[in-house]
């Protein structure tokens, strides 16, 4: 068992420079501390997952990378640049895309318009190509291009949120609980899509999940977060086999 109980120091550091590197980040909501010094690395071409219970600070970490809330201490480095103080919309223009918690699609706008919004980062330079690509990845969206976002089912909305994020041709795709509230079949379909994108295009993925089993099976590496601190990290397989992880996040859960 090589899964470590101490934080990041023990992660087998890859010789490559990480694409995203979170260093000692502390974030607060008012006076309440949400992240108590978090270190996370995401290397190019990896799928990295962050698992943890409700309120552990997983979504906060993802939002902190995007500067909302801002990290009060520590650093967020993306592609060699310090983005700790960069404005959210500028971060999005650097090749980071997110499918946020609760999907946050634009309900009164059509699927097509939602996808257009995703492409505004690079001024619609590859819009037609990318639209074609999203429609190939998610054929369901193709059928619904003219339908309003709010009329889609939960799974379709999740596909739209991921598709919208992909429209900006990101280097790093950050997904916040894509499985939330979806039927197991749809969850499998979405996770398969993520795996395919990673394999075929080398897309780097950072996945925040509560569905630990699926997430760890998919991911190359994983982190476990408890109360704003990373308590364990290791490869997906290692974490899946780790008795502590099994006890806390897998036993009793339906796999």
């Amino acid at each position, binding site marked *: 068992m090589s899964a470590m109980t101490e934080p990041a120091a023990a992660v087998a550091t890859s010789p490559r420079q990480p694409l995203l590197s979170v260093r000692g980040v502390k974030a607060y909501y008012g006076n309440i501390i949400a992240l108590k010094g978090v270190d996370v690395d995401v290397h190019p071409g990896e799928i990295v997952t962050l698992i943890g219970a409700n309120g552990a600070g997983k979504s906060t970490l993802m939002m902190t990378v995007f500067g909302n809330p801002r990290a009060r201490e520590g650093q967020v480095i993306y592609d060699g640049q310090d983005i700790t103080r960069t404005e959210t*919309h500028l971060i999005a223009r650097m090749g980071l895309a*997110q499918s*946020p918690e609760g999907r946050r699609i634009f309900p009164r706008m059509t699927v097509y*318009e939602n996808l257009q*919004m995703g492409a505004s980062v690079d001024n619609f330079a590859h819009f037609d190509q990318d639209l074609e690509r999203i429609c190939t990845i998610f054929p369901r969206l193709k059928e619904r291009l*003219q339908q309003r976002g709010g*009329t889609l089912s939960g799974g379709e909305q999740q596909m739209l949120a991921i598709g919208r994020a992909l429209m900006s041709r990101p280097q790093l795709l950050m997904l916040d609980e894509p499985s939330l509230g979806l039927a197991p079949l749809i969850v499998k379909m979405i996770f398969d899509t993520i795996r395919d994108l990673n394999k075929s295009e080398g897309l780097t993925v950072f996945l925040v999940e509560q569905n630990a089993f699926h997430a760890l099976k998919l991911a190359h590496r994983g982190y476990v977060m408890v109360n704003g601190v990373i308590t364990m990290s290791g490869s997906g397989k290692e974490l899946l086999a780790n008795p502590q992880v099994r006890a806390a996040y897998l036993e009793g859960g339906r796999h």
Partner: protein
Amino acid sequence: MAKANNRASEQTAIVEQGLTPALKEAAFAALVTFGLCIPIVAWGTRQDLNNRLILDQRWDAVAWAVLIVFVGRLLVSLNKQRRAAGGGPLVSMPNALLPAMAKLLPVLAPLAIGFLFVFPIVAIFGSGWQGSIKWIDNFGVQILIYVMLGWGLNIVVGLAGLLDLGYVAFYAVGAYSYALFATKVIPATYPALGVWAFWICLPIAGLLAAFWGVLLGFPVLRLRGDYLAIVTLAFGEIIRLVLINWVDFSGGYAGISTIPRPSFFGIPFNASDSGFAAVFGLEFSPLYRTIFLYYVILMLALLTAFVTIRLRRMPVGRAWEALREDEIACRSLGINTTSTKLTAFAIGAGFGGVAGAFFAARQGFISPESFTFMESAVVLAIVVLGGMGSLWGVAIAAVAMIGGPELMREMDLLKPIFGADFDPTKYRMLIFGLAMVVIMIWKPRGLISTREPTAFLKESKSVSGSLVKEGHG
């Protein structure tokens, strides 16, 4: 309740059946009305010849109000019961009408615009040379000013979703810009430009108003909803109070008079030899100016609509709408929300300013009295009643809200009912309130609430989005 079938119970909450609950509800509503009427309606004051206040008893009016509310509430309750029992149509008529109307729109739009262009001619044929001034001015010009204001505010409130209660401030900025430039600046610097004053000042007024829109925009960038509404409300009042108190600048309560009227591209509308009538070999009549003003405001309003339609299809317009839907999502998609909000404020304010300049030129006299909060409320009511974001809805609401009271004044048959000195404009607020309540019950998202998509695919791939009812998933 037992009768309620699945389909109906899905749509409405459980509704008690029978006459007694309906009567109870109606009685309760009547009681509330009675309570409200005691302090507001039951006693009226007036001064007699000796300047003494006389207290009038108006219990008959109270009785009427209570009766109307009782009967109205009873009918509403009974109707609700009927619907819950599955007896009534589940899709109310107007909802069913809208898809049909949407199909007709491509035909309707040119027809409506065509009618607007021939309206002065229709008015002249309908009510004669003298009688038509009233129709063109009181109806045509007046309504079109509010249509333009509504379309301008629609950019801020309807598209960008920023609740602005101080829109009248930009209307005032536009009006005073024109008035001050035309009466002070131009005569002092280039008097030869006098006849062109309106055409020179129109863009200046728009730009100044847009500038003030940005100035207002900066401090309120982080605010939304109620907080934004309060700050914009205060801004509107500040502008008005400055205009009242800075007498050297604006003339205070006295306002600014003898504002130059617009010229026909350099040819003034007067009875002189170089006037419009003489140049074109016509007999002098004030009607020409009125007709000209009508076409000017028509073009300005259509320009507003055109710009809005174009902008909606451009990235900035789409960003406005996305901002209205979800600000956080916008930011994480790389949209600069600061500049998006500021452009919405600036462009909306700019159109308000142009409308203000036109208003000053048409009236020839302006004072702070014309720019009270009431005006903001009226324009906002037009936007909300029309359906936020819908150009058609706003136009229809403006016609109803501004044209309605004017039309009621024309109706002689109302005189015997309400008395000879019946002035419907006094009841404008009452009508607004009623319209608001009716719209809230009947179409809570405004007259035309379906949002038109801005992008269309070449071939329709499935059901059109506008035909599918919105759900929140």
